């Protein structure tokens, strides 16, 4: 390679390396702000700011969703499989909200330890499935459960 070109290439690579380490350090320092939500464990350990509007995220615990038949009030538990917390919300939930699904709620912790949400968003994963396949999977799972149950009864 021509020495002049080699010199220019080295300068460009050096600038890129310096800039990317600077950007990396900035992002590392701002990690708490870049993360979209706090997990229940982070909130329980006091990592999240108190009495401030924050986002909390986790998986909705199966069987924990309680709806008020008269209003849009709903309460449910979310968990990260270490800690769980109760969230209260008055409003319309997204279509994808269901038990066992990830959600992100914006709001603040109240004194009684309940999280009062002003907005609830549903998370979904990159696993897409045809409805028949998911039904078949569910059937297979429940069949397996009945098989184990019948095996236990003998």
């Amino acid at each position, binding site marked *: 390679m021509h020495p002049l070109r080699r010199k220019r290439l080295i300068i*460009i690579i050096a600038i890129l390396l310096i800039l990317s380490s600077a*950007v990396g350090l900035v992002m590392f320092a701002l990690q708490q702000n870049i993360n979209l939500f706090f997990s229940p464990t982070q909130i329980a350990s006091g990592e999240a700011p108190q009495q401030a509007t924050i986002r909390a995220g986790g998986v909705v615990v199966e069987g924990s969703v309680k709806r008020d038949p008269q209003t849009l009030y709903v309460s449910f538990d979310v968990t990260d499989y270490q800690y769980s917390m109760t969230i209260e919300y008055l409003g319309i*939930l997204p279509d994808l909200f269901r038990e066992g699904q990830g959600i992100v709620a914006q709001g603040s912790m109240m004194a009684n330890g309940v999280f009062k949400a002003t907005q609830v968003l549903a998370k979904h994963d990159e696993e897409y*499935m045809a*409805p028949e396949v998911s*039904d078949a999977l569910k059937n297979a799972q429940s069949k397996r459960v009945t098989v184990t149950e019948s095996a236990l009864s003998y």
Partner: protein
Amino acid sequence: MSWAWFHRLGSPKSFFFWSKRWARPAFLSGLIILIVGLVWGLAFAPPDYQQGDSFRIIYIHVPAAMLAQTCYFALGVAGIVSLVWQMKIAPMFIRAVAPIGAVMAFISLVTGAIWGKTAWGTWWVWDARLTSVLVLFFLYMGIIALQNALEETALADKATAVISVVGLINLPIIKYSVVWWNTLHQGATFTLTEKPAMPVEMWLPLLIAVIGFYCMVMGLALWRMQTIILLREHRTQWVKQEVTDHGV
């Protein structure tokens, strides 16, 4: 290894005649492949078990997002070539591809917002993935603005090459944003190492749509290159010959 082909493509004249041959086949085959992929994906692929039909927007969202990043990667490489080797063709390539990449980034942001409204319940959220793609869109807009703002072509070329190269840092941030931080956006749909987490009748039309987008964009880029080469080389003898022989 011989670099002769590389230097040949670097000359505007041989690139012009090469691209004249390939632009139309690339664009037309891309169009056909894209129509096949989209009709299959939008009408025949099964709906998602949770999101129903609204997940079909993936067949536009994912290809556009991939193209937006690939175009930027190409801009970055062209920027390095333009700064180090100072090939004439590299700044022309940046000028040709930047608007295409900007449109792709815009499509992915808009389709993502529409999908987000139906799936997540919000048009926009400042999570790492969405924000870094917005930054990508602004980088494109900055490159286009700079090209048009500076009167002197040599200076404009150098400045845009520098932005293109520096903006490369954003690409790994986009890619790993869903891994490094917790975000509302889900993980990657396609990876090179793993099988996609969806059945073949869902990802095959998506793959076809992606290939169609790539071919179409290649055709568009070659056409834009031809126009830019004719504009910038209008003083040369071969351009005069070409225009008198074939018209513009």
